[in-house]
């Protein structure tokens, strides 16, 4: 069994179709929709966690691609300007999954991308405006 977090971009003609349903029904995957949004230009974006056997995850992703859904790794959509970060920890206060945390020894900010659900709460909260989430 494996877990994979992906960001899906749906073209306008696909936003009304029950695509994620097929991941459950046809590929036997446990899906967890962490975030979903439809934008003004009518593209849809979704942060999705896939849980299941590795080959089934790959087949599911192939199915999504065959439906013209763009599949990207989730972690690359968060940009933290570590150079300018002052390690105040304000972002850790709103990070429910605990992806942003202070190292208990150095008290410097650490970012565990695998835990991030791209909720974007940290973006507004950073007092120096150093975090960007492209979603």
């Amino acid at each position, binding site marked *: 069994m494996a877990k994979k977090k992906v960001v899906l971009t749906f073209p306008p003609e696909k936003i009304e179709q029950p695509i994620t349903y097929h991941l459950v029904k046809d590929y036997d995957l446990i899906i967890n929709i962490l975030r979903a949004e439809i934008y003004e230009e009518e593209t849809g974006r979704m942060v999705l966690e896939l849980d299941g056997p590795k080959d089934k995850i790959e087949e599911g992703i192939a199915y999504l691609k065959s439906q013209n859904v763009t599949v990207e790794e989730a972690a690359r959509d968060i940009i933290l300007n570590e150079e300018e970060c*002052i*390690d*105040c*920890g*304000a972002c*850790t*206060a*709103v990070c*429910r999954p*605990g992806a942003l*945390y*202070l190292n*208990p020894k*150095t*008290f*410097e900010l650490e970012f565990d991308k695998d835990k991030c659900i791209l909720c974007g*709460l940290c973006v*507004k*909260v950073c*007092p*120096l*405006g150093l975090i960007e989430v492209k979603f």
Partner: protein
Amino acid sequence: MVKSFEEINEKIKKGEAVVVTAEQIIDIVKEKGVKQTAKEVDVVTTATFSPMCSSGAFLNFGHSDPPIKMKKVWLNDVPAYAGIAAVDAYIGATEFSESEGMRYGGAHVIEDLITGKPVKLKALGSVTDCYPRAEIETYITKDTINQAYLFNPRNAYQNYAVAVNSTNKTIYTYMGTLLPKFGNATYATSGQLSPLLNDPYYRTIGIGTRIFLCGAQGYVAWEGTQHNPSKERTDKGIPTSNAGVLALIGNLKEMSGDYLKAAAFYKYGVSIFIGIGIPIPILDEEMVEFVSISNKDIYVDIVDYSVPKRDKPTLGRITYADLRKGKITLRGKEVPTASISSYAKAREIAQVLKSWIKKGDFLLTKPVQNLHEEGITKTLDIRTKEDL
């Protein structure tokens, strides 16, 4: 064993002073005991790097030709107070930009000046025979103006609060974003490293004390506004809430952008991270007792920030050691904790100050006058002239 400021300074000048940080002293005292530590250690450095709204800078722009008596002043569209002579102004950290709102403010202007960026100065004058110019628009940097010094009315609070939110909706405060139903708890101060927590009765920190201020050598100018030393204290004399506080002064031109950072708290406004380091001389064994405190000895009140009243309810009291563990239990619920001041930066400042003193670049000063050890803050009430 009693040492004087003068004796400690002689050792500093000779490069013989033993200087450690307020974090390092904890284990030294544990290992060697109070008596021996008082003999061996001369200075303990404390530090904090935290948002401190009550900050700002006095600037003197120099005279234009023809001269102007400035009545209204804007720096990068942020209003500054100019009701002081002709070309003096005070820019407060929390003032908003008139064009960008709360994303850019006085704090950002101050940071831009420190880092050497050009800042747009616009001023309107009141025309007189000696000051004929009505308005001016130009650019300045810290090098083109006469004086630029931070004068921060309320900095380095002795202790603060743990902020929580009991309501069903998120609230936005100077303690950061507080999630509903005790979704998180935020706290400030550097705890065991914090200056006034290591000198709880202000024996050595007073008016005239030389300090590290944002990378330069600055001074304690006065007691901070709302200095409130009579607040409740624990057996060790440590207040469990904000209590004592300092007004600080220092030359902005010598400061570093590494130790002053403008901040914007979402839906609250502009604030400023100020880096402060204060040396504490080990005059005797009592001072060793004071500086030996660690996070487990420092309690702080948990305050419900969702109550929009002057006196917010206190829900309990907890140590910094517990806060640092990342979660606390409040009303049976596990609540994640987060600091809004940088302990990593505070550590760095304590180290920098330590190296200055070891090198003999920084001498200690005995307070010209001590801060009040007692006193409370007054409240502002609606009253008529006749009530007084």
